[in-house]
């Protein structure tokens, strides 16, 4: 009797473990938000072109991740892409004339937002907008410009 009991407990634990592993794989590897900062404030910026920037991409300043992109949407009134991102509250003294550019980490890496500090006395706060922006560099446009400028040389 004791033996079948321990077999049943072992099997139950094993099946539960398997089920929860399956649940973890289907939910955690395929979606969800993993940014772990308790206290954040939200900032927005409008871009002509965001390239392949997606929600959950990092926001970095001097190469250090200080926040995450929360949403990338299209603003039909301004006809621009609206990017909202949250920044960890411990970095609360970023000047409000800082500029945001969409950069690529490495040759094949993902795109992220790089912030560059300005010189203003006031700092960014919840809901403020960054006015100085630089769009993502799209390779096709770059090649197009290069072809046009080299054509005019003759």
């Amino acid at each position, binding site marked *: 009797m004791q033996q079948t009991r321990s077999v049943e407990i072992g099997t139950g634990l*094993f099946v539960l473990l398997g089920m929860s*592993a*399956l649940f973890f*794989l*289907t939910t955690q*590897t395929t*979606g*969800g938000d993993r940014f772990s900062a308790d206290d954040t404030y939200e900032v927005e910026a409008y871009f002509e072109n965001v390239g392949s920037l997606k929600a959950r991409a*990092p926001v970095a300043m001097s190469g250090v991740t200080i926040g995450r992109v929360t949403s990338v949407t299209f603003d039909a009134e301004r006809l621009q892409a609206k990017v909202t991102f949250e920044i960890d509250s411990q970095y609360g003294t970023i000047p409000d004339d800082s500029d945001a550019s969409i950069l690529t980490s490495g040759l094949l890496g*993902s795109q992220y937002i790089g912030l560059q500090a300005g010189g203003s006395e006031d700092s960014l706060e919840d809901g403020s907008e960054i006015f100085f922006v630089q769009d993502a560099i799209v390779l096709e446009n770059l090649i197009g410009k290069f072809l046009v400028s080299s054509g005019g040389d003759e």
Partner: protein
Amino acid sequence: MKSAVRDIYNNVFEFVRTFGAFQLFFLRLIRHSPRMLMRRPGLVIKQIYNTGALSLVIIMVCGFFVGGVLGLQGFANLARFNAEDSVGAVVALALLKELGPVITALLFAGRAGTALSSEIGLMKATDQLSAMEMMAVNPVRRVLVPRFLGGVIAMPMLVAIFTCVGLFGAHVVSVDLLNVDVGAFWQQMQLSVDMDDVQEGIFKSIVFGIVASLMAVWEGYNAIPTAEGVGRATTRTVVITAIAVLIFDFMITAIML
């Protein structure tokens, strides 16, 4: 000359016959399966414990180190392109689609398949199966079907656990030791892994579970009832399962791509 031709003929004939017997054996197991599952679930649970729960240690240890080495290799090679953020995506896809199901199936053949076939082979060698037949108990239904079902049910669970532990190992190596950004690790993974990839892994684990359990039970049941025969059957279980799993893996991947 004539006898050589006859030998070849006999061998081919014997191969075809064995193959046919194997198919019929599979159908017999399938036919008895639902009734066994309904009427004697205790027997099946015992076998899930034997094949699944007792394989947990080897599965988890191997999973951790496979994930860890993937993280290490992925980091070292992606760092050349400054793309070490993608290490999460690389590890997750490799584990979910290929390494999880395949390595688990190979470990399963080594840990549980050999135990099954030697157990059944020894039962046959000591005439326990004949004794059951004398008592009007069908040994296929009483002995083979619960072991087959136990393996089939345990395998997808083992694969899921292996993959999770592997991801944990990769996380430890790349995030905690090599300082890949936690957010980038998970973001890249979630961007590139689709539900299709998870489904492919689950489908493979079900197929491999059937293949590995079927081979173990078949080899044990058809073992020559001597000490040497049981040993040979055990060896053949591992060899044939490994070959079959890798061939099936290639075919499933080719179909699903």
